[in-house]
Structures are given as C-alpha cells and as structure tokens.
C-alpha cells in the first residue's frame, strides 16, 4: 500500500473511531444531567425557570467535548493536513 492510500485509510478509520468513542461519554453525561434536572423540576416546579437555564448551559458545556471530537473528525476527513501535503508533493 502506498503512503497516500495508507493516509486515507488511517484518516477515515480514525475519524470514525473518534466520533464513535467520543460521543459515548457526553451522551451518558447529558442523559444523567437531563434526568437529574427533570426530577428536580418534578420536586420543585416553582424553580423550573432557573433549573432549565442551568440545564441548558451545562448541557452545552457537556456537549462541547462531543463537539471537539466532531471537529477533529471533520478535520481528518475534509481538511487533513497530511493528505494535503501528500497531494501537493505528488503534484509538485
């Protein structure tokens, strides 16, 4: 296998693994956060506004780890620096 095919295969495989493993943790965390917030709203309906606002902010912060993995996967697929380097070497 020449190096371009190797880079392509490893990049695509790594992108898939990145988003697959990287979304497990945030999914569990968001599920826990949402469940806790729902039970808190059920116990104290008067505080629903404050709980919802805090829930949204914390969901976004938890989600950002998944977003990091997504950005890395997108960079590997669409803007891979090694791939671009090999292509420019081949062209030049």
């Amino acid at each position, binding site marked *: 296998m020449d190096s371009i095919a190797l880079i392509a295969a490893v990049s695509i495989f790594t992108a898939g693994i990145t988003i697959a493993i990287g979304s497990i943790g945030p999914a569990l965390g968001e599920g826990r956060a949402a469940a806790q917030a729902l039970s808190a709203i059920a116990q104290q309906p008067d505080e629903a506004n*404050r709980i919802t606002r805090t829930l949204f*902010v914390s969901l*976004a*912060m938890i989600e950002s780890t998944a*977003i*990091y993995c997504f950005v890395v996967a*997108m*960079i590997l697929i*669409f803007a891979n620096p090694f791939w671009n380097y090999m292509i420019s070497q081949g062209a030049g």
Partner: protein
Amino acid sequence: MEISPDQIVYFHLGPVAINATILFTWVVMLLLTAGSWLVTRRLRDTETMSRWQNLLEVLVEGMGDQIREVSQTEPGRYLPFVGTLFVFIASSNILGIVPGFRPPTGSLSTTTALAICVLVAVPLYAIVENGVAAYLRQYLQPTFFMLPFNIIGELSRTLALAVRLYGNVMSGTIIIAILIGVVPFFFPIVMELLGLLTGIIQAYIFAILAMVYIASAAQVEAAGAAASDRHEPNQPS
C-alpha cells in the same frame, strides 16, 4: 466541500482577500447597525410606539433580566458587551437559513475573535470593579501553587468558547450539505429547523458563559476582600 467560509474568496481589495466570513460579517453588522439606527431615530415614550421599538425594548429588557439573574447584580455596564455578543451571534446564526448566506460564526476565525474579546473583557471588568492588585491576587487563590492551573484554565476556557460555537454552527452546515446529497427534499428542512434552535441556544450560551466568567472575576474577589476585611478585626479579639 468547503469546511470553512474562509476558503470562499469573492474578490481582492488590495492585499486583503475578501472571503465569505468577512463579507457576511459586514452584512450582519450593516443589518444590525442600520436596523438599530432606523428604529431608534424616532423613539417615543408615549403609550403608542412602533412595533420595531417594542421589539428592541423587549430584547434589551430580556437581556438585562438574564444578566441580572445570572450575575446577581445590575446589568448596567455589562449589558452593552454581553448583549452585543448575543445579538451578533444570534442574528448571524438565524440568517443562516437565508439561501447563499454562510454564517460567519461557522468560521473558526470569527469565533476565536469573539472568544478573545471575552478573554480581554474579563480582566478589564474585574480591574475596573476591584483594582489591579485584587484581580492579580485572584490567580493565587486558593494557594500559590494553583497559579499555573489558573492561567491554563483562563486560556482553555477561551479555546472551549471558540471551538464550541464553531463546532456547533459548522456541524449544522456540514450535516445539511451531506443530507442534501443523500435525501434531497424533506429531511434537510428538519435539520434546518434544528439548526435554528441550536443557533439561538449557542448564542445564549456564549453570552451567558461570558457573563458568568466576567461576574466570577468581578465578584468573587469582592466577596473575598470583604471576608478578609471581616476576618482581620476579629483576630486581635
């Protein structure tokens, strides 16, 4: 496929390449500035007001309320900065449904610039509030050895702010582009709706997080100073 609107260059203005990010940032700025100017030209404090004035009043009042609830202080001097962040990000995300418009927040350059604004604004507000010494002492909380970690925390939360907004807006654009290739007609519209929701929530979260950072730098120090003031007279007795 272009992953970032930075790569779409429309024309060159001297040495500066005018790409989609700069162009659409100007469009958003023009819309906001011209809209605000048109509306605030004839402000009325009577019972009848134009519907646009009503809209702006609701917006400003709502942002003030949110800031008051998050920071437990009067919005006063925080409102211009945090409100501007929210309005800019929200309007550029909403305009993303206009065909041909590339949201400038979908570029890492824009979001990094916004996050650096927050990074600079936090010490500015804290110093105006408490003075330079009180702000710098905050880095030595709770002990001297936490200094590197406090500095790293300051930088990493700036990175997190930038990448969170960029990743959310960019993922919306990319997913719609991929879906148009796979299922062309109905499903992308649903994802556009979801993109509108995420756009507003991300704008809200960016503004709220900026407010939380500013408030924690400006207030924890004041509380700590008050506590130490209370502590010192007690020691002799």
